């Protein structure tokens, strides 16, 4: 009797196990699209251009950004409401979620992949977490000499297991060395300029550049020679001209570094500035359709794609880098918030907020080759960011 029932049970067990194990897959063609209004993400894949699933319950995702673990399996989602969520892209679930502050703006993952840092507005500062467990490892309040807290912006990782970030109100850049994770060693650079509003680090991890909202110019830190201090570059690039009101802050993490030139959005102008990375002088200006928000180079650096602030946010333009001319003006639809290239740049994915669509374009023909329904899409983040400094 026992023998008879044992066999079907064994078969049933094998059958169930077969069902539970999905086919093996890698994660190099995966990505996350933020659904900012409903507080969820869509997990997507770029090979077949499909959605793999939705993960909900991530809080206020306005201005949300994503970093990836170095194995490209886990995404760290930074929400506006201070929520930090670790998501498993393969099992399509939340691994851990912590409310780490009242108001946050973004994060970064360390060179060794073991630490996740979050930049906070309220209370102003940086918190460092264990990337595996999301346990708090260190807390760095952004206190200036007067004992006032600043909003922290422009947080990036740098070689040497360091993080670099800027203090909006204080006008400072701080370098935090996390080689001993529980004891961050801070180097502070003061009086770097008025109201640094965002920053980026070049792909080689050498130069940290903060855009200044309070004045025309950029603050530059050479991480190979930090003893030299922070230098001001592109001083007064708009002197004598009336700056336009800014309806959306430019984002600098997408600044296009094209080898020897850097293309940067001009704050409050319908212009992209071309900067020579050798001497940090402006060598050209490209007139564009609106105030640039993201200025992003295709991975081969031949093209730079630009989107714009309200009320020009229905258009995306393509700049041909060698000739510095606009070779294409696309109209994906109202509310273009972000764009992201596939790892080698044959496609670009564009989020069109007011149409609840992500539209996919061929970057050679400029033809639309696909689209996916996504609720109020904002940031698009593909997993190859895992292996790029500053992303």
């Amino acid at each position, binding site marked *: 009797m026992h023998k008879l029932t044992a066999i079907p049970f064994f078969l049933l067990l094998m059958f169930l196990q077969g069902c539970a194990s999905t086919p093996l897959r890698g994660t190099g063609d995966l990505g996350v699209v933020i659904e*900012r*209004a409903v507080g969820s993400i869509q997990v997507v894949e770029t090979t077949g251009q499909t959605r793999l699933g939705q993960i909900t319950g991530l809080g*206020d*995702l*306005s*201005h949300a950004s994503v970093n990836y673990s170095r194995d490209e399996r886990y995404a760290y989602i930074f929400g*506006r*409401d201070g929520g930090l969520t670790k998501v498993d892209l393969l099992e399509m679930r939340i691994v851990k979620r912590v409310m780490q502050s009242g*108001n946050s*703006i973004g994060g970064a993952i360390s060179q060794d992949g073991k630490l996740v840092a979050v930049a906070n*507005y*309220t209370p102003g500062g940086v918190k460092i977490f264990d990337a595996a467990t999301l346990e708090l490892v260190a807390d760095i309040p952004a206190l200036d000499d007067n004992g006032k807290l600043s*909003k922290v912006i422009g947080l990036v990782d740098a070689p040497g297991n360091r993080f670099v970030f800027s203090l*909006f109100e204080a006008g400072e850049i701080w370098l935090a060395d996390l080689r001993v994770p529980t004891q961050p060693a801070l180097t502070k650079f003061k009086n770097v300029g008025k109201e640094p*509003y965002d920053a980026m680090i070049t792909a080689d991890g050498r130069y940290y550049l903060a855009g200044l*909202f309070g004045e025309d110019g950029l603050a530059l830190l050479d991480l190979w020679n930090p003893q030299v201090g922070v230098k001001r570059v592109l001083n007064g690039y708009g002197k004598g001209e009336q700056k336009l*009101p*800014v*309806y*959306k*802050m430019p984002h600098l993490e997408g600044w296009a570094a094209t080898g020897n030139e850097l293309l940067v959005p001009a704050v409050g102008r319908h212009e992209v500035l071309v900067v020579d990375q050798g001497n940090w002088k402006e060598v050209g200006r490209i007139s564009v359709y609106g105030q640039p928000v993201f200025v992003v180079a295709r991975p081969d650096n031949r093209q730079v794609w630009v989107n714009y602030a*309200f*009320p020009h946010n229905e258009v995306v333009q393509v700049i041909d880098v060698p000739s510095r001319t606009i070779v294409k003006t696309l109209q994906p639809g109202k*509310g273009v918030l972000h764009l992201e290239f596939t790892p080698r740049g044959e496609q670009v994915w564009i989020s069109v*907020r*007011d149409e609840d669509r992500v539209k996919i374009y061929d970057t050679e023909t400029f033809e639309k080759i696909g689209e996916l329904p996504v609720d*109020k899409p904002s940031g698009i983040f593909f997993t190859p960011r895992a292996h790029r400094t500053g992303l």
Partner: protein
Amino acid sequence: MVFPSLAFADLPSSARQTELLNLVRQDCGSCHGLRLEGGLGLPLTPVALKEKSPEALKQTILYGRGGTPMPPWNPFLTDAEAAWIVDTLMKGLP
């Protein structure tokens, strides 16, 4: 009186109200947070605005606030629309 009462004739049409709500949530939300609980800009929740003057808030929307990133919205909004937005923010967005 806490809220400025809007004359019926000053109310934006319901189609325009939908547009304005989208503008407040999405475009104001870029700096003030999608839940209007603050970000680069200050919180715009009913509690945060309770003590503020509706007229001053309207002026800030229309003309921006010098020395801060808050831009003037008067190229895109009429006086009555700005007043309606203030009223709506003070009551809480639907």
